[in-house]
């Protein structure tokens, strides 16, 4: 199983499953992060504590803990 935090910079992936619970899941969905959506990893903050991704046309910052809850696969 691969999650978003395992992805390298400039890597393009597809979301397979959201393992987040209720509220956080709703939040991710409202940002357009849901099954089948395409995500590009843009940047890692120092020590990979936070990552910046691009979903659709929007840039989103996620903490490593949250990124771990997003299962992805390579496209």
């Amino acid at each position, binding site marked *: 199983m691969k999650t978003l935090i395992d992805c390298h910079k400039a890597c393009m992936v597809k979301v397979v499953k959201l393992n987040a619970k209720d509220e956080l899941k709703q939040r991710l969905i409202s940002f357009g992060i*849901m099954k089948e959506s395409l995500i590009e990893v843009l940047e890692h903050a*120092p020590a990979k504590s936070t990552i910046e991704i691009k979903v*659709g046309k929007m840039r989103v910052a996620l903490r490593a803990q949250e990124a771990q809850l997003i299962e992805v696969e390579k496209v």
Partner: protein
Amino acid sequence: MNEIDAKACPVIAKHIKVALVGQPNVGKSMLINSVSNAHLHVGNFSGVTVDKTEVLFDYKEYHFTVVDLPGTYAFTDYTIEERVTHEYLCNEEYDLIINVMDSTNLEKNLQLTSELLSMNKKIIIALNMTDEADKEGINVNAEYMSELLGIRCVKVSAATKMGIEELIDGVVKTYEQEKVDSKLIFSEAVEEEIAAIVEYLSKHKHQANNSYRNIAINLLKNNKKTYSRLHDDPIWTELQPILIDASKHIELHHNSDDIKEAFAEEYSSFNRGVVAEVVEQKALEVKATLTDKIDRLLIHSFWGIPIFLFFMWGLFQLTFEIGAIPMDYIDMFFAWLGETIGATISNDDIRSLVVDGIIAGVGAVVLFVPNIIILFVGIALLESTGYMSRVAFLLDGFFHKFGLHGQSFIPLVTGFGCSIPAYMSARILKNDRDRLLTLFIIGFMSCGARLPVYVLFAGAFFSAEMAGNVLFAIYISGAILGLIAAKVLKLTAFKGADEPFVMEMPKYRLPSLKLIYHTVLTKTMMYLKKAGTFIAAASMLIWFLSNYPHNLEVVKSYEIKIENAQSEDEKLKQENSLAEALLEQSYLGQIGKFSEPIFEPLGFDWKMSVALQTGLAAKEVVVSTLGVLYALGADVDEENKSLANAISKHISFASAVAFIVVVMIYLPCLAASIVFTREAGHIKYFFYLFFFTSVTAYVMAFLAYNITKIIV
């Protein structure tokens, strides 16, 4: 319209109340500003508007009330500001919704729209940022979109004021026309279930305000309100099994056990369909956008933080260096004003009130307007370019170690300007514990009103080349102290799980000069207004407290000494000690003397003690108190008139350091404390804050005083 009717209810007849709704950072407030010439605060990050604001204006024969609601990604009540919007939309009376969208990102914006559609309200869509879309080669076919959604869509641009009239005309038309049902279509499986429920409801002639279709959708989406409304209805027993079956069917269809997720996917595929039909994207060459390029540098995993620190250092250098240029002139102006006005007043007491009280007090505060303006320009740039969110991204990892949230950075930075909006903007934090923690820390970010105190002391004890660095050091050490305090609080008072960090990073935008100008002007005028009203009144009060009671015996005893003085020097010396003696036995002197023992271990004389106490009302009053006290006091040496000189002469370096430390840490001003209490939700938090800041300030100042004494 019938004339009698119009007279009977002139307001209701032509009044349209509009709720302005949209996702964060799509330009809602800016749109209101360009419609109505209001000056709502605008920035480039999500969470600028945290509370609803009403704006009134007239257009043709209608009175409009536009309610600017905080941006919300979806009806999830994730944060307090989103809850404000959701509750307003569900419970308040209004005529229609303007749904503002960012034309450059329709697909995401439509997510919220699809939720709005299931409410029984008239909606009009404002396709904002059309100018930006044009630049990016995006063309939205508004007519076709109106047709597809069954909602009027108008292209506008709040920035260039394009399409504003069309939008208002559209609002009037939508208001006058009957509500049209939306054309949102789901997949076959969902449509089947909706049809089944609609059929059941119409068979039983269920009474409701909303359409059967919307009720069915809301039931399937597990909407709590719809549920509780139907729960007491006799049909519920029969309806419930239908619903359970329907949910199972839909979940099976979506291969998910979460009906909300299933619906989100439904909406998303509908939205993708709409976007595919109405948006025409010119094939631009695939090259990195400007935002990509800037981000590559500014959020670089190694250089990002040094660059940010450099910006901050530069800001404080500018604040001091450029701010110092007009200061001499302002100082000269108030000295001249004092002399000129003083010469026209014959009564000694009144002259002293005006010159030593009001002019010295207000002048001491107005002196720092140039510094304040530069600081505010810096903060306005940070807010409006989109850099703020980048810094939140860079610092989240670091902040997280101290128990703070990356998004805490936004209220904290706002705190450098003024604590009041900072307390308000902490609403972007979802979790109450994180929010409270941030509220407690905001005070450590020295606000603009404390800047005068720092500039005054830095100027008094350091050369002009060093003063900017000293200023930067003061702010940074305040921030570091804040982080340490956060860690301590997180480990003790606010233990608990962390809030997730999921934040939108807006596109970089070049802020318009007009926007910066308005933001800075509004804030500067507020500062000046405060100086002219509150500070002037406080200065008068302080003057009174420091002049009365008049002790005639002291005056008499000195008069003899002064008359007997042999030389001019001797005479001057006696006059000085008379002023000092009078000041010491005044009300303020008594208060100072009374509290002096408390502050003595920190190396403060009674004047400094008094200035700190009056500073509880407002931080600028610290400076104006010192101004009044030293204007009245011993310093009559003509060449050393300025307050900075008086301070460097009368206060030791170690005491000054301790004084700065107290000002950095202790309780924010009265107005800010009130807002703090309101945002924290209970008066007990105010007492915690008072206790927490006072103890910290005292201990830190004690350490600073003694360490400085050893070193220097």
